[in-house]
Structures are given as C-alpha cells and as structure tokens.
C-alpha cells in the first residue's frame, strides 16, 4: 500500500508517516479528571453521610502530590505534615518524582486535571484566534515570565515552612475549580481561577507556564531525565511542525534533545503525533531505538 508523501521546500522526504493522531493521552486525561472530580464529590457527600462506592473520600489535598513537596521541610524537621496533608500526598509526590526522573513532568501533561481543564479552554481559544492563539506575548517578555513560577515556588515553600499552614490553598485555582462549592476556597483563589480561565483562551496552559509551583519543581527533572524528546536531524525536514504543536512554545527543532524546563512530555511534537516524518522526533533514551 502506498504511503502519502509530504513535500516541503524541495527537501527530500525520507519516509512518510501516519494519518491520525493517537488519542491515548486524551483518554488518560479524561480518566484522571473525572476520577479527581468523583473523589472531591465523594468527600463532600461523605460529610452528609453519603458515599459513592469504590471511590476514595479523601480530600483534594490528600491526592495532590504538591502537598508532599510543601510538607517536605516539616516532615524532615519533626516527622509530621503541614495542615491538611496526609501520607497519601507524600506517596504521590514520590511516584511523581520517579516518573519525572524517567520521563519528565508527565504528571503535568497526562494526569493533572487542571492542565487538562486549560487544554479544553485552549480548544476554544484556537477557534477564536486561529494561528495567533498562544503567540500573543512577545518572545522576550515570555521568556522572562517563564521563570515566574520559580518565584511562586520559593514564596509558597517559604511561607509554608514559616507558618506550617497550607498557604498555597488560598491562591490555588485548581482547589477553587474542584471545590467551588466549599467555603474553604478563598476569594483570591477564585480570582486567580477566573484570570487563568480568561488567559487560557489566548495562551496554552498559562497557569502551567507562568505560575504553577509544582510544574516548576517537576520542570527541573527535564535537565536530567532518562527519556527525552530527541530529534534526529538526519530525518528532519525542518518544517517546524514540532515547534508549532508544542503547547509550551518550546522550539523543539532548534536542538537535538529537549532540555527546556517547561517541557511537559505531552509527546505532541513527536513523530507519533505531529511530526510528518517517522523517526524524526521520538521519546527515547540516549541512542535508544
């Protein structure tokens, strides 16, 4: 059976590839989004004596791995967690770190329900703004703003260490989204959620790019993770489709491996998804096949 051939700028095409993108990541995202929604609903139901069978009734904090990170100092110092954090947060933190050492921040792109929520809003944004979507902020400004999340991370950790309270809850849009009915949500969290929703219509994953402290932590693993997004220059036609498909605006085509701290390992840029060339952009170990 003949394969379709894509020609661009008279660059010889070595091999051509697939027809449709796999939806595996979407299914995984949907699973975790609804799982978290069900758990938070079950938690609310449990307070009035009801429950959904086979679903945990833990709090949102109990199933958020960032709670483990925020508790690290107190755990090391006195062996306990900050308010509202339980052993489960710690376990999930360790799992997320193991995954990040191997594959980078897959928790952000495959599991985090707030990332999924922003991606859904991005679909509306793309329809509204077409190719301008996700390219409104000048590159120079954007590249500086990308480090803002490390400032947020520092502030959250510092304030959590000094107060031993879960300070982040008051500004956490993820908590506001999944607990909107609760009087535990601070006005500031609702405001940040509102701003994130609006920004998501013009920028892909604005919270992840500029403010998420947990994304900041996991992003560091991109520097030394084992599986990386690797580009084979010999197979590349320099069409830049990988660059355009990246929700985090990473110039994938400019290097042989993605080491950018913002990569979320969504695999959108790979030959399996966007790249028209097979074996040009892959998620591999060094020299791996």
């Amino acid at each position: 059976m003949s394969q379709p051939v894509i020609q661009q700028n008279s660059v010889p095409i070595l091999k051509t590839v697939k027809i449709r993108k796999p939806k595996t990541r979407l299914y995984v995202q949907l699973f975790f989004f609804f799982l978290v929604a069900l758990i938070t609903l079950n938690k609310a139901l449990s307070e009035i004596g009801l429950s959904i069978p086979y679903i945990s009734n833990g709090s949102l904090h109990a199933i958020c791995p960032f709670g483990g990170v925020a508790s690290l100092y107190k755990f090391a110092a006195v062996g306990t967690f900050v308010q509202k954090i339980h052993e489960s947060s710690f376990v999930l933190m360790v799992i997320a770190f193991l995954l990040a050492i191997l594959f980078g921040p897959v928790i952000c792109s495959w599991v985090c329900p707030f990332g999924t929520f922003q991606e859904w809003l991005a679909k509306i944004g793309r329809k509204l703004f077409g190719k301008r979507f996700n390219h409104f902020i000048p590159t120079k400004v954007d590249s500086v703003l990308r480090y803002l999340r490390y400032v947020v991370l520092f502030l959250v950790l510092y304030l959590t260490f000094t107060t031993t309270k879960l300070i982040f809850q008051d500004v956490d849009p993820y908590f506001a989204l999944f607990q909107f009915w609760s009087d535990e949500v601070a006005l500031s969290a609702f405001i940040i959620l509102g701003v994130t929703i609006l920004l998501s219509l013009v920028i892909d994953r604005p919270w992840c790019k500029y403010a998420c402290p947990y994304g900041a932590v996991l992003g560091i693993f991109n520097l030394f993770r084992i599986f990386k997004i690797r580009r084979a220059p010999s197979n590349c036609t320099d069409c830049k489709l990988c660059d355009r498909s990246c929700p985090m605006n990473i110039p994938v085509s400019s290097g042989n491996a993605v080491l950018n701290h913002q990569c979320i390992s969504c695999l959108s840029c790979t030959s399996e998804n966007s790249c028209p060339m097979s074996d040009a952009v892959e998620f591999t170990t060094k020299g791996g096949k």
Partner: protein
Amino acid sequence: MNLRSTHLAIIIFVFIFGGIALTSATGYWQTTNTKIPATYKDGEFAGQADPADIRGSYTFGDISNSFDIPLEDLGQAFGVDPERYVTFQCKELESIYASLEEGKEVGTASVRYFVALYKGLPFNLTESIYLPELAVDILKEKASLSEAEILSLEEIAVSLPASDNSLDSSLPEQLEHENVENTSTDTHETTSANTIKGITTFQELLNWGVLKEDIEKILNDKMPNPQKNIKDYAAEKGIEFSGLKESMQELVDTVKS
C-alpha cells in the same frame, strides 16, 4: 528505547496505582487523618502527644482522648454548645469567631496553644495566637502557670463577641425570645432581659452589674467558671436551683434599682 503514547500511558497507570496498592498493603497510604497527633521525638516529653500536630479536623472528643483533658474544660474554654463537645471540630472555631476585630483570630492554633498550656507541654509560638477569655480563666484555674505567663495570657485574651454567644445552641432561642419580649414594651424589656433562667450563666450576672463578691457571698464559695450555667452549678453542688435563682435574682434586682 523508544516509547510511544500507549506505553507511557500504561507506565503512568502502573506507577500511580501500583504505588498506591503497594503503600496501601503496607498501611502507609492514608488519605484521611488518623486523629492521633504525632508525639514529641526527643527530650523530656518524648513519646507524649504533641499539641502542635492538632489539625482543624480534630474534634474536641479526639483532643480530649489524646491529651486527657476533660471535654467540659475544652468546650467551656471555647464556648461550645455542650451537646456538641464530642463532635465539635477545631476548624469550626474560625467561622464562629469570625466577627473578632481584624488581626485577631480564634481557631485551631488557639486550641493547640490552650492544650499545650493546660498540659504544660512545650509549644513553639510562630504567630500571634489569641484565646477566649474563658479559656484563659480555665488555664489560670487548672494549669500550672507562672505570673509572667498569666500576664501574657491576659494580653491575648479576647472576649466573645456578643453575636457569638450563639455558640451555645440554646442561646439563640433565648435571645430570640428576649428580643420578642424587648419589642413589646420598654418596661417589660428591663424586667425580662435581666431575669435569671435555667441557662443564665454567671458571666451574664456579671454583665448585668452584679459584683463577683456578692455572688460568692451567696454561693459561700468561689465563683466557678463564669460561663457555667447557674442551674448546672446548682445541680453540681446539690443546691436547689429555685432557691439559688431567687437569691441571685434579688441581687440582680438590687443592681437594677
């Protein structure tokens, strides 16, 4: 090694749910609090429950069990409805004491501090903590405190805002009842507002202008915790409430006149 989406999806599921299964099997996976506070790791108090680990979700019943503090002391200290002593959660205090002036807060931290002082346990103060006046009174009476500690406690004592008397669930009905009476006639207002009933506390007598010394003369004893109901006091001491009420009412009427 080259990974594709399906492989990565499977690995993510295996890691997450495998990790949860493994830690569940070992008993480490906990999504809710055990309601048993952590203990001091070293020093003189090693092995004892640490008040710093009291969480907002702890009930007064949990705290009473863990720290061996009478429920009544805890409940009275924070002005909680006696019917809810066992089930009252620390985090409920924040909303109940919401009308305190800005910057002052009575919440879980207050309970931690109260418990530490009550039991004479070490406590690291990292923020300004306020206690209800009743809690301070109980500490003065039952905890071993130095003069300096008592003075510092008086500085952080906050009185229960008038509207927050509703902590005792029986009070709203009483207040509502009194309000109805108050609106009927001015004359009636003065007589019904200062009438001793079953739920009248010693604090109310003081608020109406009765002197503590006069109350103690009638009781022939020290005045108990001001938040205590006169009726409860009478029952405890085996005194007939009607007689005590009559004597106290005379005091109230004398003040009025």
